[in-house]
């Protein structure tokens, strides 16, 4: 081993200058299928348990095992949750990528590496910590397969030593991770300790340390897909259909778990049905059928599934059938980085299907919103009798996020305008598509309603107010105009945008996970470039009036998003009055990696000439 020395306890004694406390990105480079996920979660939780705000991002390939994978853990005393571009501390476990990985560490950073990789000579500006992982775990087990897994937990121990993580918290996190699996628990605890002990020999030569804070008390850690699943559970979903696709599968798989646990009666009867459909066309078809028949029905998918749902989406819009679709966005077509994050389905989903369709979109930015918007999506779908798309993304859906616990829905479930047998008795008459209330939303009946006037014939737009077949231009135009009116009404019913800042000339507008980079970028802009911004986070389409107002009160509005073509910027341009549309400035990029603040700061400042 090249370097050997005792670890130091006094940060001021570090060779690298001032210590950096609770503010760093640790990147772990491994291969997938090697069990590193558990180790990374333990690392994340340990920091969390020490009261330090933390976020984790998994960057994984589209295969099952053996390809390079990275996990980055960011501790941020300021509570920033976005990805940080710079790597402060690298754990290099993968020979294949080690050289490139090392090249990406920021000067002054550090590298923990598997000793046989011999990376220490690669750069002079980093602290290198070689660790003989095989040797460390060799004493725990002789089983080669197990050894491979335990190497990972060992690096957690090494990091604990280097960062001064509390081993008690590491142990607690391991307990949480392996629960009742006694054998696994024991082995992993041993591996962590082996790492911790093995690292005693390393001389600390980097400034990074984690110190206990009190910024995570009461909080939970959860991924967006689980949060959305919980939302659906409490929304009272009754039919769930799906066709597996990354990154949405875990939403449904988690939901199935919750439904089995909390929605099966003592008689063994389930108050739900889950159907693994044969494909996405069937998945959405079942949801449309169920929504028509009165169930709260949903499906979850990603881009390719959204494309396949186009025809049904149009039918849902025109025949006015409630449906909830979660789109956990990823990149490109099936063979285009399916395991990378994106906000690339906004435009095509807004107008999904031929003809003049338009859909309600919701944009959760946090796991809390994954939960609350799932609930709202069902109310909106039934309230407006139309498909509602919740546009999450891989970063939000599959990564772990810190959050306040979710609030139990205060509103009772709202099932929209449905006429019962008794209503029909009272009213005498029923016209499915008659705009009785002037809001474009008409009354419906459910099949099975025991009244001779309840039935109507459902089809696309070839009908009059009584749902009778009609090809008359007047009927048809009237109906289409009502649909447009209805959608316009949704502006004030969808989640309102959230504003931050006041009185700046410049606006920033974002949605979904881009939010986290914006929070940080605004601070950077203020601090580093003296640029003040106000911020509006859009949470739904069609746009609420506040969105227009934001443009009215700002000279320029930077619309930041994670796609190539500036898709939300496009929707804004279509919706805003021309003089306001002229204020749109688009910052749109897609790299497959979650958006970081630095990129936004730099591009915005450049565009502002600062």
């Amino acid at each position, binding site marked *: 081993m090249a370097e050997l020395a005792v670890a130091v306890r006094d940060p001021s004694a570090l060779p690298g200058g001032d210590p950096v406390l609770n503010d760093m990105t640790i990147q772990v480079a491994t291969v997938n299928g090697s069990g590193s996920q558990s180790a990374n979660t333990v690392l994340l939780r340990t920091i969390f348990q020490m009261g330090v705000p933390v976020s984790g991002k998994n960057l994984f390939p589209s295969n099952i095992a053996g390809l390079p994978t990275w996990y980055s853990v960011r501790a941020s005393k300021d509570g920033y949750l976005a990805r940080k571009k710079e790597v402060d501390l690298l754990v290099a476990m993968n020979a294949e990528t080690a050289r490139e990985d090392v090249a990406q560490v920021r000067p002054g950073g550090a590298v923990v590496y598997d000793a046989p990789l011999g990376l220490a000579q690669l750069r002079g500006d980093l602290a290198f910590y070689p660790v003989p992982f095989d040797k460390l775990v060799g004493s725990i087990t002789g089983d080669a397969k197990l050894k491979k897994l335990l190497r990972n937990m060992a690096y957690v121990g090494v990091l604990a030593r280097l960062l001064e993580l509390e081993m008690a918290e590491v142990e607690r996190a391991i307990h949480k991770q392996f629960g009742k699996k006694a054998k696994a628990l024991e082995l992993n605890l041993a591996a962590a300790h082996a790492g911790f002990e093995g690292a005693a020999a390393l001389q600390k030569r980097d400034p990074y340390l984690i110190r206990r804070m009190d910024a995570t008390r009461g909080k939970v850690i959860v991924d967006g897909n689980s949060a959305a699943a919980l939302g659906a559970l409490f929304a009272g979903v009754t039919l769930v259909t799906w066709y597996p696709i990354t990154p949405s599968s875990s939403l449904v798989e988690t939901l199935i778990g919750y439904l089995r646990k909390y929605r099966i009666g003592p008689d063994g009867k389930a108050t739900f049905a889950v159907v693994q459909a044969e494909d996405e066309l069937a998945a959405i078809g079942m949801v449309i059928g169920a929504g028509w028949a009165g169930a709260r029905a949903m499906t979850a998918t990603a881009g390719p599934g959204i494309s396949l749902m186009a025809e049904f989406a149009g039918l849902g819009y025109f025949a006015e059938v409630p449906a909830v679709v979660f789109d956990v966005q990823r990149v490109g077509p099936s063979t285009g980085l399916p395991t990378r994050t994106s906000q690339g389905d906004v435009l095509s989903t807004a107008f999904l299907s031929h003809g003049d369709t338009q859909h309600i979109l919701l944009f959760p930015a946090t796991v809390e919103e994954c939960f609350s918007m799932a609930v709202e999506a069902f109310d909106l779908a039934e309230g407006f009798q139309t498909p509602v798309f919740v546009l999450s993304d891989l970063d939000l859906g599959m990564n772990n996020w810190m959050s306040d616990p979710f609030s139990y829905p205060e509103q009772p479930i709202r099932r929209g305008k449905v006429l019962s047998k008794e209503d029909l008795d009272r009213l005498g008459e029923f016209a499915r598509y008659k705009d009785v209330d002037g809001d474009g939303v008409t009354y419906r009946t459910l099949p099975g309603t025991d009244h*001779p006037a309840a039935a109507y014939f*459902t089809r696309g737009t070839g009908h009059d107010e009584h749902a009778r077949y009609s090809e008359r231009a007047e009927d048809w135009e009237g109906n289409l105009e009502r649909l447009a009116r209805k959608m316009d009404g949704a502006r004030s019913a969808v989640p309102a945008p959230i504003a931050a800042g006041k009185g700046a000339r410049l606006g920033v507008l974002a949605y979904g996970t881009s939010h986290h980079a914006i929070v940080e970028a605004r601070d950077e802009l203020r601090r580093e470039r003296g640029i003040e911004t106000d911020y509006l986070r859009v949470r739904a389409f069609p746009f609420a009036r506040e969105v227009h107002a934001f443009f009215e009160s700002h000279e320029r509005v930077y619309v930041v998003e994670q796609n190539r073509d500036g898709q939300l910027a496009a929707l804004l341009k279509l919706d805003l009055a021309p003089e306001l549309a002229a204020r749109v400035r688009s910052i749109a990029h897609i790299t497959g990696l979650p958006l970081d603040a630095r990129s936004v700061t730099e591009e915005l400042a450049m565009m502002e000439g600062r």
Partner: protein
Amino acid sequence: MASAPPATPRTNRIGLSVLDYRGLKTTLCAGCGHNAISERIVEAMFEMGVRPERVAKFSGIGCSSKSPAYFLSRSHSFNALHGRMPSVATGALLANRTLIGLGVSGDGDTASIGIGQFVHLMRRNLPIIYIIEDNGVYGLTKGQFSATADLGSTLKTGIVNELLPIDTCALAIQLGATFVGRSFSGDKKQLHAMLQAAIAHRGTVMLDIISPCVTFNDHEGSTKSYAYVKEHDEPLQELSFVPSFEDISVEYAPGTTVDVALHDGSRLRLRKLEEGYDPREKVVAVRRLMEAHAQSEVLTGVLYVDTSAESFVDRLHLPDRPLATLPQEAVRPPRAVLDEVMEALR
């Protein structure tokens, strides 16, 4: 024998008249086989005393798929997308398991664009009556071949079909449907009994009903014309249906009939016309269909029936009440559950 359409009584056992089962005036061509099937549906529903409000009709796109407008006006109906009726019906019938599902499709709607959803519906044994109004062509788009057109069948334009037909009955049997029959829109008696039995069965009923398209596929050279089917029809059995609310009277010599007890207590009696054919044997049914196909026979009758298999609704352990109308208390877990979950995530 109860299955021959009897002289229509004024009202049925729930006090409705046949008028209560009618639909709008058909807009299909005069003489279209689909119209005859609509009439048989009206009769069967009337005679079984089904409450029309309890029926949900589903269809895809095509002349056949329009026909739900022409019967049972008092039933909800969903005219969906081309080839996608199965999924819509599945969703709706899971949402409300108390509905009697009746799907009407065409051979194009089912065997061409819809074959994927068809296959998977059959696998699930969803309780539904799935009718293919099979004319071997796309009627509504003016007469192109569908995937049930027989090899060598010709269009009026002289174009010859060079592909093997898909035998939807053989498929359905193999895939898991539990009541599979083939009939002919022109065979009132057989179709009537078959539809009654279909209503009584719980599980997927798949009926392929040859239904000639008089406008585009009723000429010489077509194997789905009235003339051709009449000539090549090979009925497997003589069907009689005895509803649960009626008594059975006639007795047959042993071995000449197969008696099938259906879910609602009614009985389907099949008087064998073909030695040794037992519609409870899957392998035999498929074999016989393949042979018939090779011999250009149109084998009609109840091809396969299995009254013991679990239906999709049973497998999902659904409650008796419709999912669609469960109250909030049943579907939104209490606050304590959320607390519990949050605690676990801390």
